[in-house]
């Protein structure tokens, strides 16, 4: 009986803590970074420390969604003629725009959160908060914001929309890429303003995004 009560109390306490964390300025507190993780541990674990089972589950679900997206991407890309490795600008442009159209048509109902799920979003924000809260955080942020004085709201970014041709690609520092969940070559993390963009690099399409992803 007392054991059951302890479990219930523990769960409630955890839930309260989690709720508090999620509502404070929208950014949950970062878990303590650790240097204790062995070199063989996944990069995320090495840099931010072990993830809680709930966080790990959230990222696993996001990973499943990523795999689904990549499967779709590969299927659609295979339906197009192969782009030669020595292509003309006309071939490149035609192929890219055809692919963009296919992706958009195949995901007409796509919306924010389909890949960066509601459960994964706070975890990703927390990972970013850990990186940018560290001693090099200001410099890292500066390198992302270099040539990125863009207001994502004004650009009216949408899931399934084209990555704006006029916006240069932000540099994503190696430390960020080592921490965020790994992507296949078809997808990249980029930032527009302080939004984290999941970019389909072949289709030039925004697959998903997290607004206000960078800590202030």
């Amino acid at each position: 009986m007392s054991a059951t009560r302890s479990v219930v109390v523990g769960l409630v306490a955890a839930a309260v803590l989690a709720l508090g964390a999620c509502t404070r300025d929208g950014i949950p507190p970062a878990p303590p970074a650790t240097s204790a993780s062995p070199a063989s541990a996944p990069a995320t674990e090495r840099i931010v420390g072990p993830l809680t089972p709930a966080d790990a589950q959230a990222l696993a679900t996001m990973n499943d969604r990523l795999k689904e997206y990549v499967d779709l991407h590969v299927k659609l890309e295979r339906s197009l003629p192969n782009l030669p490795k020595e292509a003309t600008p006309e071939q490149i442009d035609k192929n890219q725009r055809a692919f963009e159209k296919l992706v958009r048509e195949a995901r007409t109902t796509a919306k924010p959160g389909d890949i960066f799920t509601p459960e994964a979003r706070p975890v990703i924000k927390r990972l970013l908060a850990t990186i940018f809260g560290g001693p090099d955080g200001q410099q890292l942020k500066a390198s992302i914001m270099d040539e990125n004085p863009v207001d994502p709201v004004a650009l009216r970014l949408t899931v399934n929309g084209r990555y704006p041709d006029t916006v240069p690609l932000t540099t994503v520092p190696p430390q960020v890429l080592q921490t965020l969940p790994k992507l296949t070559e078809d997808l990249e993390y980029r930032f527009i303003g302080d939004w984290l963009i999941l970019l389909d690099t072949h289709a030039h399409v925004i697959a998903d995004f997290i607004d206000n992803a960078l800590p202030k």
Partner: protein
Amino acid sequence: MRTRHLSLIVLLFLFIVTGVGYRGSGNTAGTARLEAQQSPAAPVVPLPNRDGSFKFGVLGDFGTGSQAQYQLAEQMVKLHGRFKYDTVVLSGDNLIGSERPQDFKVKFELPYKALLDAGVKFYASLGNHDAREQRFYKLFNMGGHLYYTFNPRPDVCFFMLETTYPTPEQFDWLEKELKASSSNWKIVVFHHPLYSSGDRHGSDLRLREVLEPFFVKYNVSVVLNGHDHFYERVKPQKGITYFVVGSGGMLRVGNIDRGTGITAKGFDTDQAFMAAEIIGDEMYFNAISRVGQTVDSGVLTRRKITP
């Protein structure tokens, strides 16, 4: 007295570390040695233009389609008339702004038409303004890869990196390639400079943390970058000579911060490209402006680390 001794030691140390003003074929293993012009008034170190040597050009941040880009391209063509380089490496921002088929023509194919017609091959790395599809563009010779190597000669290897999205996989690949390369000259090309006096961008310290140890360990002699829109030759850092050649079309006048202390030679008042020639263990270089003036020149010796 003690202060004077200390000053002399410091001066001697600086002289050895920077290597500036030293020339010859001695055995300063692991340090690229350099003789270069430090002031515009000093005589130019000419490119020897020797038969059989490897000659190449360096260009960055050029793809604007502007008159300035075309005028600089004319200087490249003019130089090619008397100095037959067959390779140009591009340090990124190859097409700035839109990238429709007509942009490839206006911002690349037309300004460099005479060079392309003469068989000069351009090898691109990508900058933050470049779409990833450029890797398929025939005239950029990237073979569909975001990062790759090529050997124009057995003793020269270029490592072309992609630094807007520096994945761990790319670093693993780079270390493997550097380690496996038996070329005497290892030259790395990418967009974001590890060392730059740019007031606008400056040195990418995060990238430096990761890349510099590879360069030092695996005998890289020269690194070619862009991103900051000027020409700068940086004083040798850990034995490696870094060039920022981000003035192929874009230009940020007066952007070199003279207070960084790392500039060996800076030029931020006009567009410029670089031409170089490798003869044995030496690399001669000239930076040439839009009006054909040689604004920097010198010769450096490759690093020779004994494992």
